[in-house]
C-alpha cells in the first residue's frame, strides 16, 4: 500500500527494470560486433526480452503475454516480403532511451543516443525497422539519424505489399479491434501510424476491422506510460480501454506497442482466472503476431517458455 494523492493505492514500481536499462549507459565501450547476413535493412526488436523477464519478476500476476513472439513474427513477416533483415540485437545495441528521456534522465538518454547512433552509422544501415511504437518515435524524432530511414514495421510491410493468402474456408469470421499506441499515433507530429495497420488487418480475408470508441488521434492510452508504475488508477484506465473492446464485440484486440501488450495482457490474465464470469472473452496480441499466424510456414513462438511451469500461475486477488 502506498498513499498517493488520490488516496491509498496499490503500486507496482519497476525499479529493477529501470536499473537494468539505465546501467546499460554506464559502459559505452563498443563490444565485438558479430553480424551475419549484413543488410541495409536492419530490424531492432527493442526491449521485448526485458519485458518478459520483468513480467515474471515483479508482477503480482505473471501474465501470459509473450513478448518474444514479436521478434519471431517480425522476422517471419519481413522474410515474407523478401527482406532478410540484419538483427540489431541487444548484445551490442542499447535501449533506445525512451523511458529515460521521458522520466527526465536526459544525460542517460544522450549517452544511449550517441552510442546507438554510432553503431547504426558503423553498420551502414539505410532502413531502420522497429516493431515498437516508442522506439519508432524515439529513433525518428529524438535521434538525429541523418540518412537513415526509420519506419515502423507496419509501414514497411504496407509499402512492400504484404499479401496475406486466403484463409481456410472453415475459418470463421473474426472481428478485430486495433489500439493506436500513443507514441506512434497522436504523439507523432510527422508520419503517424494510423492507416497502415488497419490496411494490413483488412488484407486478412476473414477479419473484419472494428473501431473502438476512441480511435486514431483520439485513442485513449492503455493506462500506463513507460512502465512507470501500475496502480489502481492506471488499472482503471486499462480496464476502461478493454471494456471498449467488449462493447464492440471484438474477437481480437491488437496493438502495435509491446508496452500496451504488457498492460492489456496483465489485466486480461487476471480476468481469465474467474471461471464463469469471464470479462474479456477475446485475445490480446501484437499485430505482428496476428499477421504472422495468418501466413503459411512455421508458427512463431517466442521461445521464452519456462520449461518447469506447465500452466500460468494463479494471479493475485485484486492485482
Amino acid at each position: 500500500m502506498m498513499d498517493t494523492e488520490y488516496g491509498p493505492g496499490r503500486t507496482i514500481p519497476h525499479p529493477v527494470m529501470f536499473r537494468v536499462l539505465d546501467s546499460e549507459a554506464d559502459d559505452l565501450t563498443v563490444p565485438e560486433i558479430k553480424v551475419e547476413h549484413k543488410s541495409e535493412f536492419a530490424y531492432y526488436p527493442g526491449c521485448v526480452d526485458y519485458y518478459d523477464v520483468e513480467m515474471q519478476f515483479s508482477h503480482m500476476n505473471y501474465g501470459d503475454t509473450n513478448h518474444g513472439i514479436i521478434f519471431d513474427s517480425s522476422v517471419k513477416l519481413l522474410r515474407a516480403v523478401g527482406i532478410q533483415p540484419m538483427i540489431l540485437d541487444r548484445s551490442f545495441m542499447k535501449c533506445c532511451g525512451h523511458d529515460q528521456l521521458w522520466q527526465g534522465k536526459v544525460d542517460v538518454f544522450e549517452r544511449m543516443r550517441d552510442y546507438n547512433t554510432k553503431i547504426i552509422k558503423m553498420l551502414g544501415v539505410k532502413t531502420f525497422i522497429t516493431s515498437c511504437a516508442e522506439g519508432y518515435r524515439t529513433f525518428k524524432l529524438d535521434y538525429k539519424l541523418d540518412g537513415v530511414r526509420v519506419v515502423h514495421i507496419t509501414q514497411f510491410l504496407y509499402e512492400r505489399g504484404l499479401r496475406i493468402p486466403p484463409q481456410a474456408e472453415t475459418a470463421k469470421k473474426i472481428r478485430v479491434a486495433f489500439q493506436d499506441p500513443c507514441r506512434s499515433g497522436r504523439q507523432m507530429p510527422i508520419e503517424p501510424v494510423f492507416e497502415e495497420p488497419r490496411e494490413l488487418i483488412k488484407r486478412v480475408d476473414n477479419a473484419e476491422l472494428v473501431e473502438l470508441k476512441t480511435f486514431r488521434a483520439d485513442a485513449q492510452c492503455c493506462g500506463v506510460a513507460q512502465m512507470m508504475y501500475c496502480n489502481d488508477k492506471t488499472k482503471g484506465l486499462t480496464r476502461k480501454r478493454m471494456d471498449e473492446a467488449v462493447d464492440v464485440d471484438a474477437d481480437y484486440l491488437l496493438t502495435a506497442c509491446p508496452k500496451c501488450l504488457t498492460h492489456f495482457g496483465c489485466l486480461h490474465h487476471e480476468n481469465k482466472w474467474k471461471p464463469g464470469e469471464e470479462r474479456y472473452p477475446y485475445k490480446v496480441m501484437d499485430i505482428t503476431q496476428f499477421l504472422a499466424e495468418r501466413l503459411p510456414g512455421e508458427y512463431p513462438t517466442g521461445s521464452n517458455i519456462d520449461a518447469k511451469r506447465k500452466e500460468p500461475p494463479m494471479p493475485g486477488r485484486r492485482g
Partner: protein
Amino acid sequence: MIGIATAAKPPPLPAAPTTPADPLLAYYRSVRQMNIQLAKDRYKQGFKVRTQEYIRGRGTLAIVDEEICMGCTHCFDNCAFEAIGMVDRKFALPEYSYTSRKAVIIDDNCVGCEKCAIVCPVDAITMVTKHGFEVKDGRVLSTTAPPMPPARPAPAVAASPKPVPTPDTTPPEPEEA
C-alpha cells in the same frame, strides 16, 4: 519460408541462400536465444542489487496472524523470494480435531518487500521491524551504527603466536537448541 509472392516485388536479393532458408532461420533463432539469455543475466544482477537494498535498508519482516489466515496461498504464489511456506496445522478440540492450512514466513528469506501483505485478502499479514531497526517519522531506520569496514584479523593472529586455546574450534551446533 519465403514462399509468399509479394504484390510489390522487391529488388532481387544479392545473395539468396541456395538451401531453403534453414540456416537463416537457425541464425535468427540463435540470435533470439542469445538475447533471452542476455536479458535474464542482466536482470539477475539487478535482482541481487534490489535484494541487498532491501536487506540493508528496509528492515521489515512479515508476520502472519494464524487466527486470520485462511490458507488461500496468494502470498505463497506471489512471493518473489521464496520466503513463504504453507503448512498444515492440526487443531484438537474436545469434540473433534481438524487440519487447517496456514502460511508461515521463512525469516531468512524475507526481505520485507510487503508484497504478501498487499495481496492478502484478509489482511492476515503485517509488517514488523526487524531487530535493530525502529520506525521513526514513518520510516524504518537502523538503530545500530552503519557497519564498520572489515578489520584485518590476519596481522593480529600473526602477532600473537600463542592464541587463547579454545576448547573446540568447531562447536557442535545441534546441541545448541
